[in-house]
């Protein structure tokens, strides 16, 4: 399989490795740094990151749309948003470089990634939306649960 060529650059060509082995160690370094950042943030939990970045928009339909578009910044604590973004970055590098997705054809890549991403986003949206709704009913629907 000597003809099996690896694409050796990451960060859109910003870093180019000399060999596949070198690329693997480079990606390990990147993943370790990201994990270390996550752990440090998780232990110290800076107070400035413990609240969402924005407050919800008030008003009519435009505000509703704004709340949906910026929901990540309005309803999620900044710290959690950082964790989720870092996780997706890690997932990207594991899939692209360890699982060699970078070297597969575009069609196989899309076949796998788009399907999964679409279905997961859909599922997560539905379940979190419903969970939030049930919480709303519990809190505002005269359901006693503090006993």
């Amino acid at each position, binding site marked *: 399989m000597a003809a099996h060529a690896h694409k050796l650059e990451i960060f859109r060509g910003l870093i180019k490795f000399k060999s596949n082995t070198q690329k693997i160690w480079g990606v390990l370094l990147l993943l370790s740094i990201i*994990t270390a950042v996550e752990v440090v943030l998780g232990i110290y939990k800076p107070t400035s990151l413990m609240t969402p970045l924005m407050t919800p928009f008030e008003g009519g339909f435009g505000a509703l749309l704004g709340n949906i578009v910026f929901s990540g910044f309005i309803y999620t604590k900044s710290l959690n948003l950082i964790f989720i973004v870092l996780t997706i970055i890690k997932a990207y590098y594991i899939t692209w470089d360890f*699982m060699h997705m970078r070297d597969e054809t575009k069609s196989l890549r899309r076949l796998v990634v788009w399907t999964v991403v679409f279905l997961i986003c859909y599922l997560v949206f539905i379940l979190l939306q419903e969970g939030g709704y049930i919480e709303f009913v519990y809190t505002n629907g005269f359901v006693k649960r503090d006993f």
Partner: protein
Amino acid sequence: MDSTVVSTGTEGKTWGGGNQPLKSSYGKMMMWFFIVSDALTFSGFLAAYGFSRFKFIDYWPIADEVFTHVPFLHGQELPMIYVAFMTFILIMSSVTMVLAVDAGHEMKKNKVIWYMFFTIIGGAIFVGSQAWEWATFIQGDYGAVQTKGGNILQFGTYKTIDGEEVFKRISVEDFVTASHKEREQHENKNGLWFVEEDPLPAFSVSDIYHGLESHPDVLVRTQTINEEGEKTVLSRAASLEQVKNNGRRYVKGANLEVNEYGTPLFADFFFFITGFHGFHVLSGVVINIIIFFNVIIGTYERRKNYEMVEKVGLYWHFVDLVWVFVFTFFYLV
């Protein structure tokens, strides 16, 4: 007999067959499809976890207070450290796996053997760590009282650490003395249908109430998360009242039914998701071992390609990938 084979005029063209548009072998593609379906299973679990958490968003246990233990460092509160170690082990074993695949491409048998070996060791360390994590979680550390409504009341005192008033949980065993308890044992010789009974809990709720009464510095902490993102600590009077009126039983540790750290759902999802992931790691280790011996006896050397290592590698990286998400949603967020 020229009618049996019809020339369609598409030979050599895209629709003539025989070409591989994805430029990937059957086995590798099927592994990818399996990974897609397995990824959907795991995301189903994690999304269900998110559902339950959103449902009890103000009552959910804080993971940093639950997973604070590190082997050999007794009594120290070190959140995140051990799980960070586990994550690193798994990423490391992913790296040795991809190095094995790389060595396989270059047909270097000995290198493949060594890298596969390190991968298996890494996987074994990870599964062992997870078993330890489970054991610690099941055993629990402070004990708590479960109320009639299924909520958890924990106990603790305010301590001054570095000039700051901090609420620290204390063990129920430290301030409660168990009273003498006896109960009629049901035995099958007494003519009753023999029913199995749970062992008596170490403390009754009235024991705990008396202990709380005689220790004026001990306060109750509820599950409710306040504005500062911390669990609410009740006043002394409210503490006594809660235990007296609503206390139902003493619980210690976590299982599928009770959880001294908060809602049992947290424990249920923890056992289910990390258990399912741990099972994947375990089967990954077993498959890795099989491939490892195949490499040693030279199966792939004779086959003149190490694609099997690549396929099992895909599975192994997937297990690592899932852990990245479990780590985030169970321990960080």
